[in-house]
Every structure is written in C-alpha cells, then in structure tokens.
C-alpha cells in the first residue's frame, strides 16, 4: 500500500447545452510514490480532465459522478487515513492546502499559463508564501535557488523577468520551478512538452527526470506522444473515450502491447529509419480512390502535354534568398530606425520534379517565411527563384499578371491549422469550387463534377458537399484542405506542418494519403515540419533550417546516418523514440540553445569577422553549411563545449 495516489472508478460528465458527454468512465489507476505514471490517449480521451479532477480544477460544467481519488500524503503523520480528493469541496481549506503544496501541476502552454503581469519570481515564490507563510525575502531566496536548479543561467535576473521576455522552454522551466517550490509529493504534468521544439522538449524531459531522481517526486504524465512517454514513464495507462484500455509497466506495454488500441497507436507513429515500403497503420485507413486518381491524372496529361519532363529534373532553383523583418514594433515617430531581423538568410536549394523535399526546423527558424516567398505571398530582399520547365527558365519572383496567375495554379499550399484554414461560412462544395471559379476553369457542370472527384480523391464522399467545415473532425478538415490544393492540378504542393495539429492516428491517415496521392498523381512536395519522424516518413531529401539558415541538405538516409552539422546532430539526438529501451541519451544533450549559430564550432559557425559559411558540397547530394569539409565521425551529437547562454 505504498501508492501515493489511487484513482478508483472515476466517472466524470460534462453537461453542456449541446448534451451530456462522459469524459471519464470508471477510470482506475494508481501512482506509486516517486514514480512516473503516464496517462496516454488521443485528444478527447479524457486524460486532461482526469488530471484536473485530481486537483479539483474541473470547469463548472463538469461533474464527478462517482469514484474516489485517494491521496496518501507521505508527509502526513503515519496512520492517518488517505484523503479522498473527489469528496473534498473544491474551495475548502483542506483542498487548497493540498493544491500547489502537496500536489502541483504543470500545463501544456507555459507562455499562457504564466501571468504576463507578474514577474516569474513573484509567481514562483507565491506558492511558498501562501503554504508556508514565509517572508517575501525568504521566498525570493528559495525561488532563486530553484530557478538555478531548473536551469536558468542567471537566476537572480530571471527572478525579476516577465514571462513574455522568456522563450517557451524557459517559461516551462519556470513553471516547473513553481510546481517544485513546495516539494510536492506529486506533480501532474499535462502535456508538458507538446508546445515546445524537439530539442527543448528533450531538455524539459531531462529536467523532470532529474528532479524526480533528486527529490523523489511522483509524476503523473498526461501525454499523447508515445516517444515522450517511453522516455519518462515507469508505468502507463492507455485511455480511450474515458476508459482505461490497458495498464501496466511501460516496458511491458511497449514490448508487448495487448489491447488493439495501444497496438494501433504504436503502429501509427512514424519512427526514424523506417523501411520505405513500410506503411503506417492508422486506426482507420483511408485509401485513395484509384479510379478517381487515374481520371485526374489523365486530365492532367491532356492539359499539360508540353510539360512532359522527366521526374528528377530540377523544377525550382532557389538561390540566396534573404528576407528581413522589422524587429521592433515601435513605429512611433520619435523611435530610432527600426532594427531588422533576418528571418531567412542566404538560403539556396533545388526542388526536383516528383520528389518530396522535407524542410525541418524549430519554430521561428524561417521555414514558413521561406515557403511564403516561393508562393509569392511574401517578397524577398535578395535572391532568386527560378522555375525550369522544358529547358526554359522563368524568374518566378518577376512574374506578374497572367503569368503570376499561372504560377499560382502550379503551386498550391496546405496550411497547418485545419480549423482556421477553411472559411466557416462556406460549404465544403463552395470551398473546393472556389479555386476553379477564380481561375475560370470549365463550366458549372464540369466544376461540380470535379469537386466530387476531389472529395473522392481524399477519401470523403459527395454527401459531404453541402456541409460546413465545423461539422468535420480535424483530420477530415485537413483532407478538405488537401483536396482544395489539388483542385487546380498543381505541380508543386507546399505543406506547412500539415499534421502537427492532429492526433497520431489521424496523422498516420493523412501521411498515408499524402504518400498515395503523390504516387498516383506524380506530384512534387515541399513538406515543412518540425517533426523529423514525420518528415522522414515522406521525404526523399531533407533540408534542415536553423536561425534562418539552411544548415544541411541531404538524401534522407545520409542525413540520418551521417549528419554533419552540429544542429542536425542535436536535432536527431533529441527525438524521443517510442521505445523505453532506446531512451534519449540525456547526458549528451546540449544544455544551451543548439540553434544559436554562435554555439556552432568551427567550421560551422560564423567566423570571428562575422562572415558566414556557405553550403558546401560533401558529395552524394549531401550539403552542409560550413567553411570546410567536416571530419566524418560515426558519433551522433558529439559532446560540444557548452556555451553559456
């Protein structure tokens, strides 16, 4: 009976005007002291609700219908009976004294979870002040010590900063400090790394693991990413529609998943170095309608006879693209001239016909800006984009009028957020018809026919035509977005993080669909993502961007086997794999921001004179941004001297 927390038969219902939803149904699990238990499930499975219920933080529309949440506080006098949190009044003094003191919580989006109007030091020390009644000075001392412990380089200064001055990773560190300050017995971590970049995610996982080892804090990890779970959890509970599907130690469950749902989840996640022939297995497979695809392909052959060029030829030649934005929002007339920040810096690469080029990098590295330049929705400061078509070269950036319209037909875009990329006031039929109408293609009958064909192409059917986007799930909406991009029979489709807002099983559906479509229609993809596993599943060649620079580009095998650039190495080393036997080598992770060019050693970083290296041909289609060919060593992520940030 050493369990810290025992949840028995927890049943939670949401009562909304739209109806009653059971968010948790007879859910039972336990959290042993000092261990990490993961609740795993897709969005809407009830995992976050469970976390909130434990702390009595459920929204007012939710009601706990039954079950017990027993908390045995190791700090309580021995022999004291466990407290049933489910029966406590949420505003009661007893519950308040547990919240934040004995059980603390970490949230998904650290920038929103911290008040922007109070210094992080104030918010961290507050828990200590209200629970322990310590003086402000003492709380300050303890907070600063803890800020140092969670990895702030200058904790004294960090104490007085505001959340909006910090990066997402640092905000999450501050959140962790806030949760740890009272040395709780249990921390509930609700998707603690989901909003963070992969290198930062690895740092946060490492931090949580380290704090657990040092302080014996139990962690209830709520996560959908099996890679994160495999790297942190000792035990896990798989939740689906509010019910526990499977329970056990992480090692057992990953090695031998029994329940079909967990098996399906495991098979739906792309892993690095998957065989090309291997397909992801989503919970529900969608197949491209081969008839529809071939019909469209025929249309295409008819319509574009003159562009009969072999696959593998260069289609787009991007050279020296540089783009800066005003860094300061300050446009008042007394302000000094605004500083410019380089979003994209001297980027050159080719896109070949029929290939899928993956573009990887963390948020803010300039990958979206770059893609916007290609579709001409953003202008560039310097650089050229040339299209090579049947031997003729066209300057894409100089196109205007009708030629630009034709270019827009050839290049289409699929957006990250399927919820905001579709006009909620238009029916699906109208959304798909719009590009055809804008370009004046066909008569009304033909267009109606074409819209139906497009829906079939992405695995939806014509009964969906008159419905509005809000009636569809995220995955279905993304398919509508893909169908819209296909409407004009483009040659190149740019995908900007098309699956990052989706659950893993839906993600697998979409990734398979993209694979099938490319094969059936002979499309060229530029696939942008921060998730290397996803890129690896689709791409033939992968380009890596960091701080506006394209640091490495190579065929996918070469990039994963022999990454040359320190940033690529750090990126690959930080990807958590859904396999507890292959945990991340946290000791090798670099503590500082690996995307900062100043931290890259010679020959990768800028020279002392501030001169930047260019892409260097390493042979075999492998290029790295470097002054000299780096030595090939088998090691991934060599231990580099950490540069204090």
């Amino acid at each position, binding site marked *: 009976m050493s369990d810290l927390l025992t949840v028995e038969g927890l049943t939670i219902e949401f009562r909304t005007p739209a109806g009653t939803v059971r968010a948790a149904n007879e859910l039972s699990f336990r959290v042993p002291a000092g261990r990490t238990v993961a609740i795993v499930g897709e969005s809407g499975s009830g995992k976050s609700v469970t976390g909130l219920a434990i702390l009595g933080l459920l929204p007012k529309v939710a009601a706990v219908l039954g079950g017990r949440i027993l908390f045995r506080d190791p700090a309580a006098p021995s022999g004291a009976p466990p407290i049933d949190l489910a029966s406590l009044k949420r505003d009661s003094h007893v519950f308040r004294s547990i919240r934040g003191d004995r059980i603390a919580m970490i949230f998904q989006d650290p920038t929103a979870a911290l008040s922007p109007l109070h210094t992080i030091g104030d918010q961290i020390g507050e828990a200590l002040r209200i629970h322990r009644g310590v003086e402000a000075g003492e709380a300050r001392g303890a907070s600063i010590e803890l800020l140092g412990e969670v990895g702030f380089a200058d904790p004294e200064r960090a104490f007085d900063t505001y959340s909006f001055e910090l990066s997402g990773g640092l905000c999450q560190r501050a*959140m962790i400090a*806030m949760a740890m300050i009272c040395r709780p017995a249990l921390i509930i971590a609700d998707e603690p790394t989901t909003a963070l970049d992969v290198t930062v995610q690895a740092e946060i996982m490492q931090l949580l693991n380290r704090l657990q080892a040092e302080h014996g804090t139990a962690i209830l990890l709520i996560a959908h990413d099996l890679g994160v779970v495999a790297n942190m959890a000792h035990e896990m509970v798989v939740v689906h529609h509010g019910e526990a599907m499977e329970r056990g130690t992480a090692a057992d469950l990953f090695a031998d998943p029994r329940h079909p749902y967990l098996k399906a989840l495991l098979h739906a996640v792309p892993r690095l170095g998957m065989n090309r022939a291997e397909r992801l297995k989503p919970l529900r497979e969608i197949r491209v309608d081969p008839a529809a695809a071939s019909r469209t392909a025929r249309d295409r052959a008819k319509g574009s006879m003159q562009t009969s060029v072999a696959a593998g030829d260069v289609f787009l030649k991007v050279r020296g693209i540089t783009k800066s934005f005003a860094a300061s929002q300050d446009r008042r007339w007394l302000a000094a001239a605004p500083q410019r920040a380089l979003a994209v810096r001297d980027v050159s690469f080719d896109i070949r016909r029929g290939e899928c080029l993956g573009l990887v990098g963390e948020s803010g590295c300039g990958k979206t800006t770059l893609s916007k330049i290609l579709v001409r929705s953003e202008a560039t400061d310097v650089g050229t984009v040339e299209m090579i078509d049947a031997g003729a070269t066209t300057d894409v950036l100089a196109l205007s009028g009708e030629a630009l319209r034709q270019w827009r037909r050839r290049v289409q875009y699929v957006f990250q957020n399927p919820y905001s990329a579709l006009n909620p006031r238009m029916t699906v039929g109208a959304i798909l018809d719009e590009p055809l109408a804008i370009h004046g293609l066909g008569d009304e009958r033909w267009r109606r026919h074409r819209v139906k064909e497009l829906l079939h192409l992405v695995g939806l059917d014509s009964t969906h035509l008159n419905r509005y986007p809000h009636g569809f799930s995220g995955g279905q909406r993304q398919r509508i977005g893909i169908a819209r991009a296909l409407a004009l029979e483009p040659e190149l489709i740019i995908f900007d993080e098309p699956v990052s807002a989706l659950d893993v099983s839906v993600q697998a559906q979409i990734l398979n669909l993209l694979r099938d479509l490319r094969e059936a229609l002979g499309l060229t993809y530029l696939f942008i993502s921060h998730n290397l596993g996803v890129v690896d599943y689709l791409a033939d060649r992968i380009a890596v961007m960091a701080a506006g620079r394209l640091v490495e580009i190579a065929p996918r095998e070469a990039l994963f086997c022999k990454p040359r650039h320190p940033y690529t190495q750090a990126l690959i080393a930080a990807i958590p794999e859904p396999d507890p036997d292959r945990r991340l080598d946290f000791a090798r992770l670099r503590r500082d921001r690996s995307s900062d060019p100043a931290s890259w050693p010679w020959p990768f970083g800028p020279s002392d004179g501030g001169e930047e290296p260019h892409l260097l041909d390493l042979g075999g289609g492998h290029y790295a941004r470097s002054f000299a060919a780096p030595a090939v060593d088998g090691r991934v992520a060599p231990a580099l001297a950490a540069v204090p940030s």
Partner: protein
Amino acid sequence: MIRYLAGRIATMLGTLAVISVLVFTIIQLPPGDYLSTTIAELRAEGETQAEEKVAFLRDLYGLDKPLPLQYLTWVSGFVQGDFGYSFEYGRPVAEVIGDRLFLTLILNFVTVLFIYLVSFPVGIYVAARRYGQVDYTLSFLGYLGLATPNFLLALILLYFANTLFGISVGGLMDPDYTGEAWTAGKMGSLAAHLVVPVVVIGISGTAAMIQRLRANLIDELQKPYIVTARAKGLGERRILFKYALRSALNPFISDIGDLLPQVVSGSVIVSAIMSLPTTGPMLLSSLRSQDMYLAGSFLMFLAVLTVVGMLVSDIALALIDPRIRIGRGTA
C-alpha cells in the same frame, strides 16, 4: 520609461498643434465673421461710432490679415494665456469663461470620479458572482441606465431633489450665492446641487463601465494562468484581485482618455436643460454666432482635456503593465 514619457508628451503636443489648426479652420469655414455681421447690423441702424470700434477690433485681432497670420496670432496668444476677445460678450474670453470653466472642471471631475467609484466595485462584484441573481438584476438596471434618455432622468431627479430635499431647481448653487465670494455655505450649496447632474451625466458611463469591467474580468477568469493560480492553491478572492483584476484593469484605465471628452460633450444637453453654468451651453451659442475666439477656446479646452486624459491613461498603463513598460523597449 523616460523615453516613453518624452515620446508621449511630444506626440501630445503635436496632436494639440494639429487640433488647433483644425479648430481654427472649421471656425473660419462659414462665410463672414462675427464682425461683418455686426457691421451689417449697425450700418442698417445708421451707427458710425460703432464702426470705428469694429475697425479697432479688426485691427487689434488682425481680422483683415491673411488667415495663416491670424492663426499664428491666435495660437501665440493662447500659449501666453490670452484666449482672445469674445465679440458677443464684449469682454476678453478668459473673463467670460473663467468661472464657468472652473465649475465645468469640478462637475466633470466629480462625474468621472462617480463613474469609477461606482462601477469598479459593482463590476468586480457582478463578475465574481456572475450568472447569479445580483448579476442579472444589476445588469438589467445597467441596461436601463444606458437606455434612459439623460434629460428625462434629469427632470425626474430634479423634481424629487426639489420636493424631497428642497434643493432649488437648476443651476449649480442656490441663486442667492451667484456672484458671491466662496464661503462654506456656497460650497455646501454647490455640493448639494452637484448630486443630480453628476448622477444624470454619469449614469450611462457607469453602466457601460460596469458591463465592460464585468466582461473583461470574466474573460480573464477563463485564461490558463488563472487555472495555474488555482492549481497553486490560491483562494478565489486572491485569484480575482491579484491576477484577473490586474489584467482586466487595462481597458478600465485606457478608458480615462475616452471618458473625459465623452462626459464633457455629453453634459452639454443636460447642462442646457438644467441650466448649469458650465461651458456647454455657451459653446453652443458661441458656435452659432461665430464668436470665433470664444468657440475656439472652448474647443481647445476640450482637446486639451482629451489629450491630457490620454496621457494620464498611457502613463498609468505603463505603470501597471510590464508588457508596455518593457515590451516597447526591447521587443
């Protein structure tokens, strides 16, 4: 912070300069001026002496000079505290509006104070007890306050103030005190007479402010950082005051700048109905009779009030919101 302040003040002066040009231009837009109408009148009556006086005035204020020069004369006088000459009253503008300006300032200051003092606690209360009985009742009363025409409310309240408390109808003090020196009795009479106009002028602003504060607070109370604070073990009261209120204050404060001119112009009709000796009714008549320096002074007075209100709210915002204080400099 000092750079921020300097920038704000510079912007404020620039705005005032532009407004002064606009005011001057608009006043000059209708054909003729006060003097030309007067001359026409006098000529019809066969007066000659007056014409000399008019010529003297025309010369003094440079009415025969080109417009830009007239503008400069006017503005430079303004800076030195010489507001010009009211043709209608035959006295310097400063003399004409002196007392009225003072009373207007008092009336408006008390009204704004009233709005804030009432709406702040009520707004917080209804937000904390949202969707409850008190919330609905007060919200209903608030909408009633927004919808009731001011002049109607003024008449009703005046009637009751007179019948119940024996306060004389209209004006800002008992008629006996007009023109007297400021004594305790006069002050008391002023205070008693202020109640009704302040309530009448302030009621709609109060209702709007309560609704706004309530909406902001309810918005803030659903933000993730409130859940964080709750998860930390804070009590609801502390969450409300330390976190939610702090964020909801921003619009509350930035309203100061909007509120001042709104109250001042909103009080014109009420002042006319209640025959308050404020600047409102006089502004109206001076605009009608093209008494340009009087009208111009009033308009500039309004502009200064607005701009100063904005400055005050900007400074207050910078003081309470680090995003403005720090964000501006670094982001």
